[in-house]
């Protein structure tokens, strides 16, 4: 009889554990990570100090003076088996993008490489519904899954240093919106006036794991119309 491999608990030193639900990028695996995150925040386990959901695992920081590894492991596994769901409705963001030209300097490169027209690449990019799997790498940087494999493109060999905030990019089979200025090895296809990270805004980060994202094309002339009121482009849907 084979023992199910997941979920499993791995030590990260003496003050954190990783609860793994798989080793793939997958909606269901990610949903279970987020469900454990919600469950842990609801039970308020003494000693648990911070949790960090990622693609396929939940990192749980704890104070070993308050709770030991064995007890936390048992409690986490019990909660992981409950498959509890968040009460929060799934949020669907609609993000305006100016595609191509100086806004997306790699759009033509991608079109040439995948054998589609620029308009077709934009159409495929806008047709998808993307899932926010996790935030990481930089403040507010959301990894989006759900890109059409027809417009997937491996990362650049050399990253560029200063991607402007709002840069909409493709890296492998993932999509992203640049949150703060910084390096990017992904291909830049457009830019949005939406600020997914703003230090003094509540919320600081617009996109959260489990959210859905769609993109729609706007013209460069419409940039100012959309800038500054981007938080309006969210629709709520009950999961």
């Amino acid at each position, binding site marked *: 009889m084979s023992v199910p491999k997941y979920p499993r608990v*791995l*030590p*990260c*030193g*003496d*003050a*954190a554990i*990783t609860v*793994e639900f798989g*080793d*793939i*990028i997958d909606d269901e695996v990610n949903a279970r990570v987020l469900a454990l995150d919600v469950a842990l925040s609801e039970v308020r386990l003494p000693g648990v*100090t*911070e*949790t*960090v*959901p*990622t*693609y*396929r*695992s*939940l*990192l749980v*920081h704890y104070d*070993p*003076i308050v709770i*030991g*590894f064995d007890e936390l492991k048992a409690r986490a596994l019990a909660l992981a088996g409950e498959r509890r769901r968040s009460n929060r409705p799934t949020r669907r963001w609609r993000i305006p993008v100016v595609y191509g030209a100086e806004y997306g300097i790699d759009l033509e490169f991608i079109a040439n490489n995948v054998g589609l027209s620029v308009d077709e690449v934009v159409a495929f990019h806008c047709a998808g519904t993307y899932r926010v799997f*996790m*935030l*990481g*790498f*930089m*403040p*507010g*940087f959301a*990894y989006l899954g759900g890109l059409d494999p027809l417009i997937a493109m491996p990362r650049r060999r050399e990253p560029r240093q200063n991607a402007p905030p709002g840069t909409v990019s493709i890296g492998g089979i993932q999509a992203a919106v640049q*949150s*703060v200025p*910084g390096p990017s090895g992904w291909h830049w296809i457009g830019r949005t006036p939406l600020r997914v*990270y703003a*230090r003094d805004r509540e919320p*600081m*980060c617009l996109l959260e*794991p489990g959210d859905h994202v769609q993109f729609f094309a706007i013209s460069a002339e419409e940039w100012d119309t959309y800038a500054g009121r981007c938080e309006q482009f969210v629709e709520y849907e009950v999961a």
Partner: protein
Amino acid sequence: MIGLRVIDPGYMSVQDAGRFGAQRYGLSPAGAMDLFSLAVANALLRQKAASAAVEIGPFPATLSVVGGPVRLALAGADRKILIDGDEAKLNTTLLVQEGTKVSLGATRLGMFSYLASEGGIDAPAQLGSLSVEVRASFGSPYPRPLREGDFIPLHAASLAHAEQYIALEAPPHAPIRVVLGPQDDYFYKETIESFLRCRWTVSPTSNRMSYRLDGEALAHAKGYNIVSDGIVMGHIQVSGAGQPLVMLADRGTTGGYPKIATIITADLGRFAQIPIGGGVTFEKVSVDEAQRVAREFSREMQALPSRVRTQNATISDSKLLLRLNLAGDAVDALADAAEQ
């Protein structure tokens, strides 16, 4: 305004224990590289172990006191401390008058010193911390490492206090202890043995984000890409080239290289103090053992204030005492007493 003016910043930033709770949003916690030494500096000044201080890296640095007298204490990496040219000691409080220049030499041993001040740094916390996270624009009083001309607001010294010191034994020259994992199954058994046997050298490309270790290349058993997961302080990632990268205070919150082992909490500060070019070996311990040591370490941190002693002025300090204008202070001390 009382405080310190930065004359030569070296590699200096304001740090406390770090900013926690926002790692899920991709914000690095930052914080002191050596929390034990930060706690020593604060214990000397009878304040909370994690109060913010100026963290000073291995290069020389100079500050000047402006606006009034402050009481300072330097702990952590040993270096020459000159107060207007007169030598002062590590792990000792010092009343320093307005206009005085505080010059710190390059570290003799170690990487980071902590310059704490009585009352802490007078700047607002952001999400519970003053620590600097550059990408997220967090940090107080500046959202970046310190530069020439910056002003660090402090509190005026309480003049009536006697100066304090603490005697610390040198940290042991023992291996840095690790718990294997979380991805030790991504390496051959022989690779893990090599990792534990090799004497590693801290690479010159190391910084507050991570220390790179030079030694032998470590072979991955299942490739060097994992689906990215969370990173803690002390995680040892192994890069595609087989080089260990020890993730430290300014680490990214997630990473895609397999992590062969994790440094235990009690040894993080001792590891961060290994200078560039310095050697290090690792020793494997169980999670249970690591947690026993963590409890011991926590007790040791809590016991620091009880080890602080009052210093008696000696003849050799007379020059310093004269310059500190003790007569004027005595008047102030009487005035304080009269008000009570």
